[in-house]
Protein backbone atom coordinates (compact mmCIF):
# COMPACT_ATOMS: atom_id res chain seq x y z
CA UNK A 1 0.00 0.00 0.00
CA UNK A 2 1.59 3.27 -1.05
CA UNK A 3 1.64 6.65 0.58
CA UNK A 4 -1.78 8.36 0.70
CA UNK A 5 -2.45 12.05 0.32
CA UNK A 6 -5.71 12.09 2.19
CA UNK A 7 -7.45 9.80 4.66
CA UNK A 8 -10.24 9.45 2.11
CA UNK A 9 -7.81 7.51 -0.10
CA UNK A 10 -7.26 4.93 2.61
CA UNK A 11 -9.33 1.76 2.07
CA UNK A 12 -12.63 1.91 3.88
CA UNK A 13 -12.05 -1.34 5.77
CA UNK A 14 -8.87 -0.01 7.32
CA UNK A 15 -10.49 3.26 8.37
CA UNK A 16 -13.40 1.38 9.87
CA UNK A 17 -11.12 -0.73 12.07
CA UNK A 18 -9.10 2.32 13.06
CA UNK A 19 -12.28 4.15 13.98
CA UNK A 20 -13.20 1.45 16.49
CA UNK A 21 -9.99 2.25 18.34
CA UNK A 22 -10.44 6.00 18.45
CA UNK A 23 -9.09 7.19 15.10
CA UNK A 24 -11.30 9.96 13.81
CA UNK A 25 -11.70 10.11 10.04
CA UNK A 26 -12.90 13.65 10.35
CA UNK A 27 -9.52 15.24 10.75
CA UNK A 28 -11.01 18.60 11.68
CA UNK A 29 -11.19 17.49 15.30
CA UNK A 30 -7.55 16.36 15.28
CA UNK A 31 -4.38 18.38 15.11
CA UNK A 32 -2.45 15.68 13.28
CA UNK A 33 -2.76 12.13 12.05
CA UNK A 34 -0.42 9.25 11.30
CA UNK A 35 -1.40 5.85 10.00
CA UNK A 36 1.10 3.02 9.91
CA UNK A 37 -0.14 -0.16 8.26
CA UNK A 38 1.87 -3.36 8.57
CA UNK A 39 5.38 -2.17 7.75
CA UNK A 40 4.92 1.31 6.36
CA UNK A 41 3.51 4.66 7.29
CA UNK A 42 0.87 5.28 4.62
CA UNK A 43 -0.37 8.61 5.83
CA UNK A 44 0.86 11.44 8.00
CA UNK A 45 -0.44 14.94 8.10
CA UNK A 46 -0.54 18.01 10.30
CA UNK A 47 -3.86 19.81 10.25
CA UNK A 48 -3.22 23.23 8.58
CA UNK A 49 -4.30 25.11 11.65
CA UNK A 50 -1.58 23.43 13.70
CA UNK A 51 1.31 23.96 11.29
CA UNK A 52 4.28 25.25 13.23
CA UNK A 53 2.94 23.85 16.47
CA UNK A 54 3.39 20.13 15.97
CA UNK A 55 5.23 17.67 13.80
CA UNK A 56 4.04 14.18 13.03
CA UNK A 57 5.82 11.83 10.62
CA UNK A 58 7.27 8.40 10.26
CA UNK A 59 10.25 7.80 12.54
CA UNK A 60 12.47 6.72 9.62
CA UNK A 61 11.69 9.96 7.79
CA UNK A 62 12.32 11.95 10.92
CA UNK A 63 15.69 10.29 11.44
CA UNK A 64 16.67 11.28 7.92
CA UNK A 65 15.49 14.81 8.37
CA UNK A 66 16.88 15.45 11.86
CA UNK A 67 20.28 14.14 12.75
CA UNK A 68 19.78 15.33 16.33
CA UNK A 69 17.03 12.74 16.74
CA UNK A 70 19.70 10.11 17.31
CA UNK A 71 20.20 11.79 20.66
CA UNK A 72 16.73 10.64 21.59
CA UNK A 73 16.70 7.21 20.05
CA UNK A 74 17.51 4.26 22.32
CA UNK A 75 18.37 6.64 25.14
CA UNK A 76 15.69 5.57 27.60
CA UNK A 77 15.48 1.92 26.63
CA UNK A 78 18.43 -0.34 26.16
CA UNK A 79 18.71 -2.08 22.81
CA UNK A 80 19.74 -5.27 24.55
CA UNK A 81 17.04 -5.15 27.22
CA UNK A 82 15.36 -8.28 25.93
CA UNK A 83 14.77 -10.36 22.80
CA UNK A 84 12.08 -7.96 21.62
CA UNK A 85 14.13 -4.77 21.92
CA UNK A 86 16.99 -6.56 20.17
CA UNK A 87 14.71 -7.44 17.26
CA UNK A 88 13.50 -3.84 16.85
CA UNK A 89 17.08 -2.53 17.17
CA UNK A 90 18.07 -4.79 14.32
CA UNK A 91 15.26 -3.94 11.98
CA UNK A 92 12.13 -1.81 12.23
CA UNK A 93 9.53 -0.57 9.79
CA UNK A 94 9.15 2.94 11.14
CA UNK A 95 6.63 4.17 13.66
CA UNK A 96 5.61 7.62 14.67
CA UNK A 97 7.68 10.62 15.51
CA UNK A 98 5.63 13.27 17.24
CA UNK A 99 7.01 16.58 18.39
CA UNK A 100 5.09 19.32 20.12
CA UNK A 101 7.03 22.53 19.57
CA UNK A 102 8.07 24.78 22.47
CA UNK A 103 5.19 26.59 24.11
CA UNK A 104 2.58 25.15 21.75
CA UNK A 105 -0.80 24.49 23.31
CA UNK A 106 -2.49 21.98 21.08
CA UNK A 107 -6.20 21.97 21.78
CA UNK A 108 -7.14 19.08 19.49
CA UNK A 109 -5.60 15.67 20.05
CA UNK A 110 -3.01 14.17 17.75
CA UNK A 111 -3.85 10.70 16.55
CA UNK A 112 -1.77 7.79 15.41
CA UNK A 113 -2.70 4.28 14.46
CA UNK A 114 -0.51 1.23 14.07
CA UNK A 115 -2.34 -1.51 12.24
CA UNK A 116 -1.68 -5.09 11.29
CA UNK A 117 -3.55 -6.41 8.25
CA UNK A 118 -1.35 -9.36 7.25
CA UNK A 119 -1.39 -12.83 8.70
CA UNK A 120 1.71 -13.92 10.66
CA UNK A 121 3.27 -10.46 10.49
CA UNK A 122 5.69 -9.36 13.15
CA UNK A 123 5.28 -5.61 13.27
CA UNK A 124 8.29 -3.76 14.66
CA UNK A 125 7.98 -0.06 15.31
CA UNK A 126 9.92 2.61 17.12
CA UNK A 127 8.03 5.69 18.31
CA UNK A 128 9.61 8.84 19.62
CA UNK A 129 7.49 11.52 21.24
CA UNK A 130 8.93 14.84 22.30
CA UNK A 131 6.93 17.44 24.19
CA UNK A 132 9.14 20.51 24.05
CA UNK A 133 9.35 23.09 26.86
CA UNK A 134 6.06 24.57 27.96
CA UNK A 135 4.01 22.64 25.41
CA UNK A 136 0.69 21.03 26.09
CA UNK A 137 -0.92 18.23 24.08
CA UNK A 138 -3.06 15.11 24.02
CA UNK A 139 -2.25 12.12 21.88
CA UNK A 140 -4.51 9.20 21.14
CA UNK A 141 -2.66 6.23 19.79
CA UNK A 142 -4.35 3.04 18.76
CA UNK A 143 -2.91 -0.30 17.92
CA UNK A 144 -5.26 -2.35 15.83
CA UNK A 145 -5.35 -5.69 14.22
CA UNK A 146 -7.60 -6.05 11.24
CA UNK A 147 -10.45 -8.43 12.06
CA UNK A 148 -9.54 -10.78 9.21
CA UNK A 149 -6.09 -11.42 10.69
CA UNK A 150 -5.65 -14.04 13.39
CA UNK A 151 -2.00 -14.64 14.09
CA UNK A 152 0.44 -11.76 14.46
CA UNK A 153 2.79 -10.03 16.82
CA UNK A 154 3.54 -6.43 17.61
CA UNK A 155 6.80 -5.15 19.05
CA UNK A 156 6.75 -1.46 19.79
CA UNK A 157 9.42 0.75 21.30
CA UNK A 158 8.20 4.12 22.56
CA UNK A 159 10.38 6.81 24.05
CA UNK A 160 8.75 9.88 25.55
CA UNK A 161 10.49 13.13 26.41
CA UNK A 162 8.50 15.58 28.46
CA UNK A 163 10.55 18.70 28.83
CA UNK A 164 10.47 21.58 31.28
CA UNK A 165 6.89 22.57 32.21
CA UNK A 166 5.42 20.54 29.36
CA UNK A 167 2.20 18.55 29.73
CA UNK A 168 1.64 15.43 27.70
CA UNK A 169 -1.43 13.23 27.97
CA UNK A 170 -1.00 10.03 26.01
CA UNK A 171 -3.81 7.51 25.61
CA UNK A 172 -3.09 4.16 24.07
CA UNK A 173 -5.93 1.92 22.99
CA UNK A 174 -5.21 -1.68 22.12
CA UNK A 175 -7.53 -3.61 19.86
CA UNK A 176 -5.83 -6.91 19.08
CA UNK A 177 -7.15 -10.35 18.37
CA UNK A 178 -7.17 -13.62 20.23
CA UNK A 179 -3.96 -14.87 18.63
CA UNK A 180 -1.79 -11.77 18.94
CA UNK A 181 1.39 -11.50 20.92
CA UNK A 182 2.08 -7.93 22.04
CA UNK A 183 5.29 -6.56 23.53
CA UNK A 184 5.39 -2.78 23.91
CA UNK A 185 8.52 -1.38 25.51
CA UNK A 186 8.08 2.20 26.70
CA UNK A 187 9.96 4.72 28.78
CA UNK A 188 9.53 8.38 29.59
CA UNK A 189 11.81 11.10 30.86
CA UNK A 190 10.18 14.03 32.63
CA UNK A 191 12.01 17.26 33.30
CA UNK A 192 11.38 20.11 35.78
CA UNK A 193 7.67 20.87 36.16
CA UNK A 194 6.80 18.41 33.41
CA UNK A 195 3.69 16.32 33.58
CA UNK A 196 3.12 13.04 31.80
CA UNK A 197 -0.17 11.14 31.82
CA UNK A 198 -0.01 7.71 30.27
CA UNK A 199 -3.36 5.99 29.78
CA UNK A 200 -3.73 2.43 28.63
CA UNK A 201 -6.96 0.80 27.54
CA UNK A 202 -7.17 -2.83 26.52
CA UNK A 203 -10.72 -4.01 25.90
CA UNK A 204 -10.67 -6.81 23.36
CA UNK A 205 -9.42 -10.35 23.73
CA UNK A 206 -5.73 -10.74 23.01
CA UNK A 207 -3.50 -13.75 23.38
CA UNK A 208 -0.74 -12.21 25.38
CA UNK A 209 0.30 -8.66 26.28
CA UNK A 210 3.21 -7.99 28.55
CA UNK A 211 4.48 -4.51 29.24
CA UNK A 212 6.07 -2.54 32.01
CA UNK A 213 6.57 1.07 30.93
CA UNK A 214 8.81 3.19 33.12
CA UNK A 215 8.79 6.91 33.82
CA UNK A 216 11.83 8.70 35.16
CA UNK A 217 10.69 11.76 37.04
CA UNK A 218 14.08 13.46 37.07
CA UNK A 219 12.93 17.05 37.13
CA UNK A 220 11.96 19.08 40.16
CA UNK A 221 8.18 18.90 40.60
CA UNK A 222 7.86 16.45 37.72
CA UNK A 223 4.81 14.26 37.72
CA UNK A 224 3.61 11.05 36.15
CA UNK A 225 0.21 9.36 36.10
CA UNK A 226 -0.27 5.85 34.81
CA UNK A 227 -3.91 4.82 34.37
CA UNK A 228 -5.07 1.50 32.99
CA UNK A 229 -8.42 0.01 32.14
CA UNK A 230 -8.00 -3.66 31.46
CA UNK A 231 -10.87 -5.81 30.32
CA UNK A 232 -9.56 -9.33 30.01
CA UNK A 233 -11.72 -12.03 28.55
CA UNK A 234 -11.61 -15.19 26.44
CA UNK A 235 -8.32 -16.53 27.80
CA UNK A 236 -6.49 -13.25 27.37
CA UNK A 237 -3.26 -12.96 29.26
CA UNK A 238 -2.46 -9.44 30.39
CA UNK A 239 0.64 -8.71 32.40
CA UNK A 240 0.54 -4.97 32.71
CA UNK A 241 2.73 -2.95 34.97
CA UNK A 242 4.07 0.50 35.33
CA UNK A 243 7.09 1.85 37.09
CA UNK A 244 7.84 5.34 38.30
CA UNK A 245 11.31 6.35 39.39
CA UNK A 246 11.10 9.51 41.46
CA UNK A 247 14.53 11.10 41.25
CA UNK A 248 13.51 14.75 41.21
CA UNK A 249 12.80 16.97 44.16
CA UNK A 250 9.05 16.99 44.90
CA UNK A 251 8.41 14.56 42.07
CA UNK A 252 5.17 12.69 42.13
CA UNK A 253 3.59 9.51 40.76
CA UNK A 254 0.05 8.23 40.70
CA UNK A 255 -1.10 4.91 39.31
CA UNK A 256 -4.67 3.70 38.92
CA UNK A 257 -5.62 0.34 37.51
CA UNK A 258 -9.07 -1.08 36.92
CA UNK A 259 -8.99 -4.72 35.88
CA UNK A 260 -11.83 -7.03 34.94
CA UNK A 261 -11.21 -10.72 34.31
CA UNK A 262 -13.78 -13.07 32.83
CA UNK A 263 -14.02 -16.21 30.71
CA UNK A 264 -10.61 -17.57 31.54
CA UNK A 265 -8.66 -14.31 31.44
CA UNK A 266 -5.50 -13.93 33.44
CA UNK A 267 -4.49 -10.46 34.58
CA UNK A 268 -1.42 -9.46 36.50
CA UNK A 269 -1.40 -5.79 37.46
CA UNK A 270 1.97 -4.61 38.64
CA UNK A 271 3.04 -1.25 39.89
CA UNK A 272 6.30 -0.01 41.27
CA UNK A 273 7.03 3.40 42.70
CA UNK A 274 10.57 4.14 43.71
CA UNK A 275 11.21 7.20 45.84
CA UNK A 276 14.80 8.35 45.52
CA UNK A 277 14.30 11.93 46.65
CA UNK A 278 13.20 12.85 50.14
CA UNK A 279 10.28 14.97 49.04
CA UNK A 280 8.88 12.55 46.49
CA UNK A 281 5.38 11.21 46.79
CA UNK A 282 3.44 8.40 45.18
CA UNK A 283 0.18 6.54 45.31
CA UNK A 284 -0.82 3.32 43.66
CA UNK A 285 -4.36 2.03 43.40
CA UNK A 286 -5.56 -1.21 41.89
CA UNK A 287 -9.11 -2.50 41.79
CA UNK A 288 -9.96 -5.79 40.20
CA UNK A 289 -13.23 -7.53 39.47
CA UNK A 290 -13.23 -11.24 38.90
CA UNK A 291 -16.36 -12.47 37.19
CA UNK A 292 -16.01 -16.25 37.14
CA UNK A 293 -13.98 -19.13 38.58
CA UNK A 294 -12.00 -19.67 35.37
CA UNK A 295 -10.32 -16.27 35.58
CA UNK A 296 -7.42 -14.91 37.59
CA UNK A 297 -6.29 -11.54 38.91
CA UNK A 298 -3.10 -10.77 40.75
CA UNK A 299 -2.14 -7.35 41.97
CA UNK A 300 1.54 -6.79 42.73
CA UNK A 301 2.27 -3.38 44.20
CA UNK A 302 5.83 -2.53 45.10
CA UNK A 303 6.90 0.55 47.01
CA UNK A 304 10.52 1.46 47.43
CA UNK A 305 11.84 4.29 49.60
CA UNK A 306 15.47 5.35 49.59
CA UNK A 307 15.23 8.61 51.50
CA UNK A 308 13.50 9.46 54.73
CA UNK A 309 10.53 11.66 54.03
CA UNK A 310 9.45 9.66 50.99
CA UNK A 311 5.70 9.16 51.05
CA UNK A 312 4.36 6.30 48.99
CA UNK A 313 1.08 4.52 49.58
CA UNK A 314 -1.00 1.90 47.88
CA UNK A 315 -4.44 0.39 48.04
CA UNK A 316 -5.66 -2.68 46.27
CA UNK A 317 -8.87 -4.64 46.23
CA UNK A 318 -9.74 -7.60 44.09
CA UNK A 319 -12.92 -9.62 44.27
CA UNK A 320 -16.30 -10.35 42.83
CA UNK A 321 -19.03 -7.86 42.02
CA UNK A 322 -20.83 -6.86 45.17
CA UNK A 323 -24.19 -8.64 45.56
CA UNK A 324 -25.48 -5.59 47.40
CA UNK A 325 -24.81 -3.41 44.37
CA UNK A 326 -26.53 -5.88 42.03
CA UNK A 327 -29.57 -6.05 44.32
CA UNK A 328 -29.63 -2.28 44.57
CA UNK A 329 -29.81 -1.84 40.81
CA UNK A 330 -32.40 -4.62 40.53
CA UNK A 331 -34.66 -2.63 42.86
CA UNK A 332 -34.32 0.08 40.17
CA UNK A 333 -35.87 -2.28 37.61
CA UNK A 334 -32.67 -3.59 36.05
CA UNK A 335 -32.47 -7.32 35.40
CA UNK A 336 -29.61 -9.17 37.01
CA UNK A 337 -27.66 -9.21 33.71
CA UNK A 338 -28.27 -5.51 33.16
CA UNK A 339 -27.19 -4.75 36.72
CA UNK A 340 -23.95 -6.71 36.29
CA UNK A 341 -23.10 -5.10 32.95
CA UNK A 342 -23.94 -1.65 34.34
CA UNK A 343 -21.56 -2.22 37.25
CA UNK A 344 -18.81 -3.52 34.94
CA UNK A 345 -19.30 -0.57 32.62
CA UNK A 346 -19.10 1.82 35.56
CA UNK A 347 -15.98 0.09 36.76
CA UNK A 348 -14.25 0.89 33.45
CA UNK A 349 -14.22 4.52 34.44
CA UNK A 350 -12.70 6.68 31.73
CA UNK A 351 -12.86 9.69 34.06
CA UNK A 352 -9.68 8.49 35.76
CA UNK A 353 -7.73 9.42 32.62
CA UNK A 354 -7.85 13.19 32.72
CA UNK A 355 -9.00 13.50 29.12
CA UNK A 356 -10.54 16.65 27.65
CA UNK A 357 -14.33 16.45 27.28
CA UNK A 358 -14.60 15.57 23.61
CA UNK A 359 -11.93 12.89 23.77
CA UNK A 360 -13.39 11.49 26.97
CA UNK A 361 -16.73 11.19 25.19
CA UNK A 362 -15.13 9.32 22.31
CA UNK A 363 -13.25 6.94 24.55
CA UNK A 364 -16.43 6.33 26.52
CA UNK A 365 -18.19 5.41 23.28
CA UNK A 366 -15.47 2.86 22.53
CA UNK A 367 -15.89 1.33 25.99
CA UNK A 368 -19.69 1.36 25.51
CA UNK A 369 -19.35 -0.64 22.31
CA UNK A 370 -17.30 -3.31 24.06
CA UNK A 371 -19.58 -3.35 27.09
CA UNK A 372 -22.65 -3.78 24.90
CA UNK A 373 -21.16 -6.52 22.76
CA UNK A 374 -20.51 -8.63 25.84
Amino acid at each position, binding site marked *: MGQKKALTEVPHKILEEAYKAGIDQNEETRSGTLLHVDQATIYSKVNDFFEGKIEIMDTQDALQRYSWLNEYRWKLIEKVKDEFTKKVAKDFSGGYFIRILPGAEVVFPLQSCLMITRENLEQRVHNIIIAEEGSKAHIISSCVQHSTVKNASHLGISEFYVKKNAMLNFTMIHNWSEETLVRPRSAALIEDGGEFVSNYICLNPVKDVQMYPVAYCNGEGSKVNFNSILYGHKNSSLDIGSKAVLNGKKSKAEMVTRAIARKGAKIIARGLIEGNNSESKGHLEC*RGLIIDDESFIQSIPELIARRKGVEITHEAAVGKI*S*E*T*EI*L*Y*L*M*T*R*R*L*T*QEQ*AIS*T*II*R*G*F*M*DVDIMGLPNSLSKEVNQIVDLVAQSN
Partner: protein
Amino acid sequence: MNILTIRDLKVKVGNKVILDRINLNLKAGESYILFGPNGSGKSTLINSIIGNPLYEIDSGKILFMDKNITNWSVDKRSKLGISIAFQQPPEIMGIKLSDLLKLCLEKNLRDEFTENEKKLIEAFNLTKFLDREVNVGFSGGERKRAEILQMLFLKPKLLLLDEPDSGVDVESLKLIASKLQQYIEETGSSALIVTHKGDILEYVKSKYACVLLEGKTHCFVDPKRVYETIKKSGYEKCVECELRVKEGW
Protein backbone atom coordinates in the same frame (compact mmCIF):
# COMPACT_ATOMS: atom_id res chain seq x y z
CA MET B 1 -58.61 -3.19 47.82
CA ASN B 2 -55.45 -4.53 49.41
CA ILE B 3 -52.25 -3.53 47.70
CA LEU B 4 -50.17 -5.95 49.71
CA THR B 5 -51.24 -9.07 51.57
CA ILE B 6 -48.85 -11.13 53.62
CA ARG B 7 -50.12 -14.52 54.74
CA ASP B 8 -48.48 -16.75 57.33
CA LEU B 9 -45.05 -15.63 56.22
CA LYS B 10 -42.10 -17.43 57.73
CA VAL B 11 -38.69 -16.04 56.79
CA LYS B 12 -35.27 -17.42 57.56
CA VAL B 13 -31.80 -15.96 57.23
CA GLY B 14 -29.38 -18.84 57.18
CA ASN B 15 -30.91 -21.26 59.67
CA LYS B 16 -32.42 -18.61 61.88
CA VAL B 17 -36.14 -17.93 61.76
CA ILE B 18 -36.63 -14.18 61.84
CA LEU B 19 -40.31 -13.81 60.99
CA ASP B 20 -42.67 -16.54 62.13
CA ARG B 21 -46.01 -16.80 60.36
CA ILE B 22 -46.84 -13.14 60.21
CA ASN B 23 -49.89 -11.62 58.55
CA LEU B 24 -50.33 -8.12 57.20
CA ASN B 25 -52.79 -6.35 54.92
CA LEU B 26 -51.99 -2.97 53.43
CA LYS B 27 -54.77 -1.04 51.73
CA ALA B 28 -54.32 0.99 48.60
CA GLY B 29 -53.89 4.71 49.22
CA GLU B 30 -52.81 4.40 52.86
CA SER B 31 -49.54 4.90 54.69
CA TYR B 32 -48.44 2.53 57.40
CA ILE B 33 -45.84 3.06 60.06
CA LEU B 34 -43.76 0.07 61.09
CA PHE B 35 -42.34 0.12 64.61
CA GLY B 36 -40.20 -2.42 66.37
CA PRO B 37 -37.03 -2.73 68.44
CA ASN B 38 -33.66 -3.53 66.85
CA GLY B 39 -33.57 -7.07 65.59
CA SER B 40 -37.36 -7.46 65.56
CA GLY B 41 -37.41 -8.22 61.85
CA LYS B 42 -38.40 -4.89 60.29
CA SER B 43 -35.62 -5.02 57.72
CA THR B 44 -36.32 -8.71 57.13
CA LEU B 45 -39.94 -7.87 56.37
CA ILE B 46 -38.99 -5.11 53.94
CA ASN B 47 -36.34 -7.28 52.29
CA SER B 48 -38.83 -10.13 51.92
CA ILE B 49 -41.26 -7.79 50.20
CA ILE B 50 -38.64 -6.62 47.68
CA GLY B 51 -37.49 -10.21 47.11
CA ASN B 52 -33.92 -10.03 48.43
CA PRO B 53 -32.64 -13.59 47.84
CA LEU B 54 -30.66 -13.54 51.10
CA TYR B 55 -33.98 -13.79 52.92
CA GLU B 56 -35.45 -17.23 52.46
CA ILE B 57 -39.23 -17.59 52.45
CA ASP B 58 -39.80 -20.81 54.34
CA SER B 59 -43.59 -20.79 54.05
CA GLY B 60 -46.45 -18.42 53.47
CA LYS B 61 -47.30 -16.01 50.67
CA ILE B 62 -46.82 -12.45 49.55
CA LEU B 63 -49.59 -11.08 47.33
CA PHE B 64 -49.21 -7.78 45.53
CA MET B 65 -52.43 -6.51 43.97
CA ASP B 66 -53.74 -10.08 44.21
CA LYS B 67 -50.74 -11.53 42.35
CA ASN B 68 -48.74 -14.12 44.18
CA ILE B 69 -45.22 -12.67 43.95
CA THR B 70 -43.65 -14.88 46.64
CA ASN B 71 -41.10 -16.32 44.22
CA TRP B 72 -40.63 -13.34 41.92
CA SER B 73 -37.22 -11.81 41.34
CA VAL B 74 -36.31 -8.36 42.67
CA ASP B 75 -36.44 -6.64 39.27
CA LYS B 76 -39.80 -8.19 38.37
CA ARG B 77 -41.28 -6.89 41.61
CA SER B 78 -39.86 -3.44 41.04
CA LYS B 79 -41.31 -3.41 37.53
CA LEU B 80 -44.68 -4.26 39.05
CA GLY B 81 -44.50 -1.19 41.28
CA ILE B 82 -42.70 -2.06 44.51
CA SER B 83 -39.97 0.40 45.36
CA ILE B 84 -37.59 0.72 48.27
CA ALA B 85 -35.56 3.54 49.74
CA PHE B 86 -32.73 1.86 51.59
CA GLN B 87 -31.57 2.93 55.00
CA GLN B 88 -27.96 2.50 53.92
CA PRO B 89 -27.72 2.39 50.15
CA PRO B 90 -24.42 1.15 48.71
CA GLU B 91 -21.83 3.30 46.99
CA ILE B 92 -21.55 2.42 43.33
CA MET B 93 -18.31 3.54 41.76
CA GLY B 94 -18.27 4.63 38.15
CA ILE B 95 -22.03 5.15 37.90
CA LYS B 96 -23.18 8.72 37.96
CA LEU B 97 -26.25 9.75 39.89
CA SER B 98 -27.67 11.25 36.68
CA ASP B 99 -27.36 7.87 34.94
CA LEU B 100 -29.10 6.06 37.78
CA LEU B 101 -31.90 8.62 37.79
CA LYS B 102 -32.31 8.12 34.05
CA LEU B 103 -32.51 4.37 34.56
CA CYS B 104 -35.24 4.96 37.15
CA LEU B 105 -37.10 7.11 34.63
CA GLU B 106 -36.59 4.42 31.97
CA LYS B 107 -34.80 6.94 29.83
CA ASN B 108 -31.97 6.33 27.45
CA LEU B 109 -28.72 7.51 29.07
CA ARG B 110 -28.24 9.91 26.16
CA ASP B 111 -31.61 11.57 26.83
CA GLU B 112 -31.83 14.80 28.77
CA PHE B 113 -34.02 15.37 31.80
CA THR B 114 -37.28 17.21 31.14
CA GLU B 115 -37.85 20.62 32.72
CA ASN B 116 -40.11 19.09 35.38
CA GLU B 117 -37.56 16.43 36.21
CA LYS B 118 -34.86 19.07 36.48
CA LYS B 119 -37.07 21.08 38.84
CA LEU B 120 -37.58 18.08 41.10
CA ILE B 121 -33.84 17.32 41.12
CA GLU B 122 -33.20 20.95 42.05
CA ALA B 123 -35.91 20.85 44.74
CA PHE B 124 -34.07 17.87 46.23
CA ASN B 125 -30.89 19.91 46.14
CA LEU B 126 -29.17 17.29 44.05
CA THR B 127 -28.33 19.18 40.84
CA LYS B 128 -24.70 19.52 41.81
CA PHE B 129 -24.51 15.80 42.58
CA LEU B 130 -25.67 14.64 39.13
CA ASP B 131 -22.14 14.05 37.86
CA ARG B 132 -21.01 12.42 41.08
CA GLU B 133 -20.81 8.67 41.51
CA VAL B 134 -23.86 7.20 43.23
CA ASN B 135 -23.58 7.72 47.00
CA VAL B 136 -19.78 7.99 46.89
CA GLY B 137 -18.84 10.57 49.49
CA PHE B 138 -22.50 11.54 50.04
CA SER B 139 -23.53 12.56 53.55
CA GLY B 140 -26.41 10.77 55.29
CA GLY B 141 -28.90 13.42 54.24
CA GLU B 142 -27.65 13.49 50.66
CA ARG B 143 -28.07 9.72 50.41
CA LYS B 144 -31.60 9.93 51.77
CA ARG B 145 -32.54 12.65 49.32
CA ALA B 146 -31.08 10.65 46.44
CA GLU B 147 -32.97 7.53 47.55
CA ILE B 148 -36.33 9.29 47.75
CA LEU B 149 -35.80 11.10 44.46
CA GLN B 150 -35.06 7.79 42.71
CA MET B 151 -38.19 6.38 44.31
CA LEU B 152 -40.36 9.20 43.01
CA PHE B 153 -38.86 8.78 39.53
CA LEU B 154 -39.69 5.06 39.63
CA LYS B 155 -43.38 5.96 40.19
CA PRO B 156 -44.16 2.99 42.43
CA LYS B 157 -47.50 1.78 43.77
CA LEU B 158 -45.98 0.64 47.03
CA LEU B 159 -43.25 2.66 48.73
CA LEU B 160 -41.07 0.89 51.25
CA LEU B 161 -39.08 3.34 53.32
CA ASP B 162 -36.44 2.05 55.69
CA GLU B 163 -35.82 4.72 58.30
CA PRO B 164 -36.17 7.73 56.01
CA ASP B 165 -35.77 10.03 59.02
CA SER B 166 -32.51 8.74 60.47
CA GLY B 167 -29.34 10.70 59.81
CA VAL B 168 -31.24 13.51 58.10
CA ASP B 169 -31.33 17.15 59.07
CA VAL B 170 -34.70 18.77 59.74
CA GLU B 171 -34.73 20.71 56.47
CA SER B 172 -34.03 17.61 54.40
CA LEU B 173 -36.62 15.60 56.28
CA LYS B 174 -39.29 18.24 55.77
CA LEU B 175 -38.55 18.27 52.07
CA ILE B 176 -38.40 14.49 51.67
CA ALA B 177 -41.56 13.90 53.65
CA SER B 178 -43.62 16.60 51.98
CA LYS B 179 -42.68 15.32 48.51
CA LEU B 180 -43.52 11.80 49.58
CA GLN B 181 -46.87 12.84 51.02
CA GLN B 182 -47.65 14.77 47.86
CA TYR B 183 -46.81 11.76 45.68
CA ILE B 184 -48.88 9.39 47.82
CA GLU B 185 -51.89 11.71 47.70
CA GLU B 186 -51.64 12.39 44.00
CA THR B 187 -51.18 8.79 42.93
CA GLY B 188 -53.19 6.91 45.53
CA SER B 189 -50.18 4.72 46.26
CA SER B 190 -49.36 3.11 49.60
CA ALA B 191 -46.35 3.35 51.87
CA LEU B 192 -44.80 1.22 54.56
CA ILE B 193 -42.44 3.31 56.63
CA VAL B 194 -39.95 2.01 59.17
CA THR B 195 -39.06 4.57 61.80
CA HIS B 196 -37.15 4.61 65.07
CA LYS B 197 -37.14 8.29 65.68
CA GLY B 198 -40.74 8.96 64.74
CA ASP B 199 -39.83 12.34 63.25
CA ILE B 200 -41.48 11.53 59.96
CA LEU B 201 -44.88 11.23 61.69
CA GLU B 202 -44.98 15.02 61.76
CA TYR B 203 -45.07 15.20 57.99
CA VAL B 204 -46.61 12.03 56.57
CA LYS B 205 -50.30 11.39 57.14
CA SER B 206 -50.89 7.93 58.46
CA LYS B 207 -53.78 6.29 60.29
CA TYR B 208 -52.19 2.92 60.82
CA ALA B 209 -49.25 1.52 62.70
CA CYS B 210 -47.78 -1.93 62.94
CA VAL B 211 -45.49 -3.12 65.70
CA LEU B 212 -43.14 -6.02 65.09
CA LEU B 213 -42.10 -7.80 68.24
CA GLU B 214 -40.44 -11.19 68.56
CA GLY B 215 -41.28 -12.08 65.00
CA LYS B 216 -45.00 -11.27 65.28
CA THR B 217 -47.07 -8.36 64.00
CA HIS B 218 -49.43 -6.27 66.10
CA CYS B 219 -51.81 -3.83 64.47
CA PHE B 220 -52.75 -0.39 65.71
CA VAL B 221 -54.46 2.79 64.74
CA ASP B 222 -53.06 6.27 65.37
CA PRO B 223 -49.28 5.93 64.90
CA LYS B 224 -48.52 9.11 66.85
CA ARG B 225 -50.13 7.79 70.01
CA VAL B 226 -48.54 4.40 69.49
CA TYR B 227 -45.18 6.12 69.22
CA GLU B 228 -45.80 8.10 72.42
CA THR B 229 -46.70 4.88 74.25
CA ILE B 230 -43.57 3.13 72.96
CA LYS B 231 -41.45 6.03 74.10
CA LYS B 232 -43.08 6.06 77.53
CA SER B 233 -43.55 2.39 78.31
CA GLY B 234 -41.56 0.37 75.79
CA TYR B 235 -42.58 -2.08 73.10
CA GLU B 236 -43.77 -4.90 75.42
CA LYS B 237 -46.29 -2.65 77.15
CA CYS B 238 -47.31 -1.14 73.87
CA VAL B 239 -48.45 -4.39 72.27
CA GLU B 240 -50.83 -4.94 75.18
CA CYS B 241 -52.37 -1.49 75.22
CA GLU B 242 -55.90 -0.46 74.32
CA LEU B 243 -54.94 1.05 70.96
CA ARG B 244 -54.33 -2.38 69.54
CA VAL B 245 -56.64 -3.67 66.82
CA LYS B 246 -56.91 -7.40 67.52
CA GLU B 247 -58.15 -8.58 64.18
CA GLY B 248 -55.96 -6.36 62.06
CA TRP B 249 -57.07 -3.22 60.27
